[in-house]
Structure formats: C-alpha cells, structure tokens
C-alpha cells in the first residue's frame, strides 16, 4: 500500500522542511517535491543506485508490492485517503517532542515570548493542522535567521517580517535561507558585520556554525530534557544518552519478543493490520475504560497513552523523560533472560517490575511536575485500579 512509501518519502521531507523552512508542504503526498533540494537530490541519487534498489527489492519481495518504487522515492500521489481526518491531528498521534513543539509554536506566536518577533506569515500558515509542527520549526528557523539583517536572497515569509535581532550574537549567516531556494548554487552569500573578519574562511566558518546551532536547536526539541541544557557539549551529551537509551530499548524489546514461544505471527499480522488501518488515532475519551478481566497490557504502555491523553505538553514531556529513564534502567536489569519459555510468571514478573517502576515514576512526577492538572491524578487513580485498556 502507499503508507510506507509516503511515510518514507515524506519522512525525509519532514526533516528537510524543518531545516529549510520551505513553503507549504502536503506531507501525505510527495516524495520528491521540487521545493526541497535536499530530499529531491537525495532521492534522485538513490534512484541511481542499483545496489540499494536490489537490496530493497529483496527485502520488499516479501510484500511483492510497490515497496521498490517507493524506496526509489517515487510515491504515487494518492495516499491522502489513508490519512483520515484523525491522523491529521498533530496532537493525537503525538509524542512529547511534538507536543513541545506545538507549545513552542504557540509560545513563539505570543508577542512577548522571549522577545522574538512574531512572524505573521508563519502564523497564518499555521492554520492548517498538519503544518503545526513544521510551523513550529519554521518559527524557529525564522528566529534563528533573525540574525540576518541583510539578505541577498530573502525568503519573504521569514525576513520580510524580520524586525529585531534575536540576541546580541555576532554570528551572521545566510546559508540556510539561500541554499534551498537555489539548489544549483553551491555558495552562500554572507555579509560580514562591522568589526568581523572578512576573509572567506571565517565567513564560511560562521555559516557552518550557524547551521550547526540551528540544528542543535531542533535536536533540543526532539530530545526530551534538553531544553534546560545550554551549550553544545552538554546537548550532545543528552543526545548521545537518548540515542543510547532508545537503542537499548530496542534491544530489550526484541529480547522480550524473542521470549514469546511460539513465535507465530500467522494470525497476528492480518488482525494488526486491520486494526492499524482502522484506528484513527487515540482519542481521549475512548482510551481509558476499565476492564474486568486481567490487565491487558503492562503499564509501560502508560508512556504512549500518557502522551496522547495529557493535554499539557510539559507534563507529558517530563513524564516521558522519566519513563524513558525508568525503562532504560529496567532494560539493564532484564537482560538476564536465560530460558526461552514464555512462562506466565515471567511475564508477570516483567509486569510487576514495570508496575513498581512506573508507580515510583508517577509518584515522583506528581511531586515534581509544575503543571500538575487533574489529568495526572486521574491517571494515578486509574493506575491503582490496575486495569487499563490500551488503544492500539
């Protein structure tokens, strides 16, 4: 089907759009949008690689469908039907990062937010629901570029409304704006400020530094807990820790999957697929209903549920951060699986372990979270009731 392809192509476009702040994208459709030189060129080049195509074809031969063409970056333009109205909701299939981004976008759109100038064109484009994250990023890119007071090739939506310099930094670069608009040009126009070195090396260096700092800002939004940290080295530390914890989680989950015995997926895939395609994103009302039978899923899924239910982004971000920490700790502890039989007491052990950890996490979180609304308490109550129904 089209989902993966559009996801793949538009995933790349997503990041490119974050960085390049290009105008309106339809996320669902394009894989090789001409406006994005980075993604477009990459895809062009990927099309030309026989090895990759062959490998991809080998992998996709299971499916026998259009993976190969998708991987070559040419999605047919009709995945719109799949992304029903619910999936457009940026907040429904959310994670703390994007929730943070939304909060940031709103904060930035407020006139007094950190003294950053409001960007009217971005706010108007922010009406579209699915653009909210990219708008947050565009706001940020706009803010990052506010250091540019003169621009050779200004993008109207950013520098047109530029009125104030964000901070007193000496850096001034033009790179990010100029490059995506003019793909074939390889150089950037940078104007040196008064009192700055004007040789080409330092100018290029400045552009490079500017780009790095812009990307560090984006990463700051992605990695939970990074916004309190200032400085490249510390942020890189956080990023490294986060990537490590994610990879360890993958290891742990694959180990957990390996303990399921018999590992037969003959019935699961079709049912899961039906479910995945029908589910239109978790809605707050239907997520929680108590079930009288044994607890359906371990409480580690609280993390996913939390992020969709809790309206406050800060809270969910704190929670998920601690949840990640807790999970990474449990990861190390659970490595001692030696027998392969999926005994129920093993699963019960796992569940109990996570339950204890998560209880402590939520206790801590309830104490620390500064915006502790009623939702957190209701969560805690639901936890203690012991039966949750998870929406897939």
């Amino acid at each position, binding site marked *: *089907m089209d*989902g*993966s*392809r559009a*996801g793949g192509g538009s*995933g790349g476009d997503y*990041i490119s759009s974050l*960085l390049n702040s290009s105008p309106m994208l339809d996320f*669902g459709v394009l*894989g090789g949008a001409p406006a994005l030189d980075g*993604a477009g060129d*990459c895809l062009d080049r*990927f099309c030309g*690689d026989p*090895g990759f195509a062959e490998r991809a074809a080998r*992998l996709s031969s*299971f*499916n026998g469908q259009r993976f190969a063409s998708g991987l070559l*970056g040419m999605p047919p333009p009709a995945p719109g039907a*799949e992304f029903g109205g619910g999936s457009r909701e940026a907040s429904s*299939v959310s994670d703390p990062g994007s929730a943070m981004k939304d909060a940031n976008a709103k904060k930035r759109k407020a006139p007094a937010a950190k003294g950053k100038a409001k960007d009217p064109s971005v706010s108007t484009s922010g009406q579209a629901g*699915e653009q*909210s*994250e990219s708008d947050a990023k565009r706001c940020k890119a706009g803010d990052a570029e506010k250091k540019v007071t003169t621009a050779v090739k200004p993008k109207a939506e950013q520098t047109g409304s530029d009125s104030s310099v964000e901070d007193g930094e000496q850096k001034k670069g033009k790179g990010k704006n100029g490059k995506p608009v003019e793909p074939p040009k390889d150089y950037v126009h940078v104007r040196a400020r008064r009192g700055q*070195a004007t*040789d080409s090396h*330092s100018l290029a260096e400045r552009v490079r530094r500017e*780009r*790095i700092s812009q*990307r560090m800002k984006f990463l700051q939004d992605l*990695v939970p807990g990074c916004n309190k940290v200032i400085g490249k*080295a510390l942020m*890189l530390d956080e990023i490294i820790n*986060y*990537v490590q914890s*994610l990879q360890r989680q*993958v290891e742990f*989950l*694959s180990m*957990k*999957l390996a303990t*399921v015995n*018999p*590992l037969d*997926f003959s*019935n*699961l*895939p079709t*049912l*899961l*697929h039906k479910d995945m395609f029908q*589910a239109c994103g978790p809605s707050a009302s*239907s997520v929680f209903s108590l079930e009288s039978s*044994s607890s359906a899923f*371990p409480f*580690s899924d609280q993390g996913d549920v939390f992020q969709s239910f809790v309206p406050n982004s800060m809270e969910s971000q704190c929670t998920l951060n601690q949840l990640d920490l807790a999970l990474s700790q449990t990861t190390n502890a659970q490595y001692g699986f030696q*027998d*392969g039989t999926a005994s*129920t007491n093993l699963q019960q052990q796992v569940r109990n372990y996570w339950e204890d950890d998560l209880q402590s996490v939520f206790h801590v979180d309830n104490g620390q979270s500064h915006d502790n609304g009623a939702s957190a308490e209701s969560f805690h109550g639901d936890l203690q009731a012991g039966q949750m129904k998870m*929406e897939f």
Partner: protein
Amino acid sequence: MRGPTAKAFKQGFLRSFLLSLKSCRTGDMSLQERKRAVRSSADAAMATARGGGAIWPRALLASSSSSPSSSSWPGLLLNAAKVKTTRCKSTARRCCRPKRSSSEMIARRLVRKRTKILRGMVPGGELLDSVSLLREAMDYVVHLRAQVAVLRRVSNAMHHMAATSYLTGLDLSRLAQGLLHRVCN
C-alpha cells in the same frame, strides 16, 4: 515526527517487520539467535520503511544484510549526502584570530569527542560531516522512537495472546481477534 507521516511510517514498519519475522525460521533457534533475528528484522524494517530521504537507512541495511555489501556504497552514500568537503581544520585554525582561551579549546575538544561518539552511534555517521551528522541524528532519533513504540505494542500484544491462550486454551486466532476488537472499540 507526528501527524500523517508518523502513522504511515509505523504502518510500513510494522508490515515489513512482521513479514520478515514470518519468513525466518524461528522454531529451532536459541533465545539469543531469536533475539538477534528479531532485532535485525526490526532494523531492516525500520530502514525499509524510512525510504530514501536519509543516509542511515542504507547504512543500516548494508550493515545488517548478510551478503557482502557492494564496495561502492560508501561512495554512493557520499554522493547522496551531498557531503561538502570538510574544511581542513588546520587551515581554519590558522585563519582564526590568534588569541584563544584555553577554556575554548577545552570546549572544542569536548564537542569533538562527543561528535565522534555520536558518529559511531548513528549508522552511516562516519561518512558525514558534523553538520549533516546532526541532521541524520535528528532523523534517526525520530524513527527510533517510532520503532520503539511499535515494538512495544507488538510485544505486548504477543505476550498477552500467548499468556491467555496458554491459560485458557482458546483458539489463538479467535482470541487475538477478540482482543483487538476490544482494543479498537
């Protein structure tokens, strides 16, 4: 990465993951081998579902594929990444202003060390300069998160199915169907 792209990626990832798991014979493997099979199929599925917008999927596929990867893929990756030639660091140092505090040099050294570590963790990072490395890391983090979420749900579903079928002895398919219907509604 949220909104329409997240769901699409997760669906594609799930599909590839389950298909690859179905295809490998896990019946007669040890636990470690099974785990390795699950992990590698998850990575391959993630890379396949990601598509061609980044460097790390190809590096991931190349490192996990059993057949020896073609020798040209690093060069192709370089081309695809549009890697600017990393500026000669010595030239930069010479051109910069001579006065530089030692604290600045320490900071630089720290950053450089961490960048090296990050390079090792992101697949395909060795070929990228630090600017593109950050972008790749961003992309990789986003998709890793989605992968973790999907894996978690799949493993929970599988465990629940296995547990309840073990206990009650019901037909597995009917059980799974009932479970998922309860979950969706």
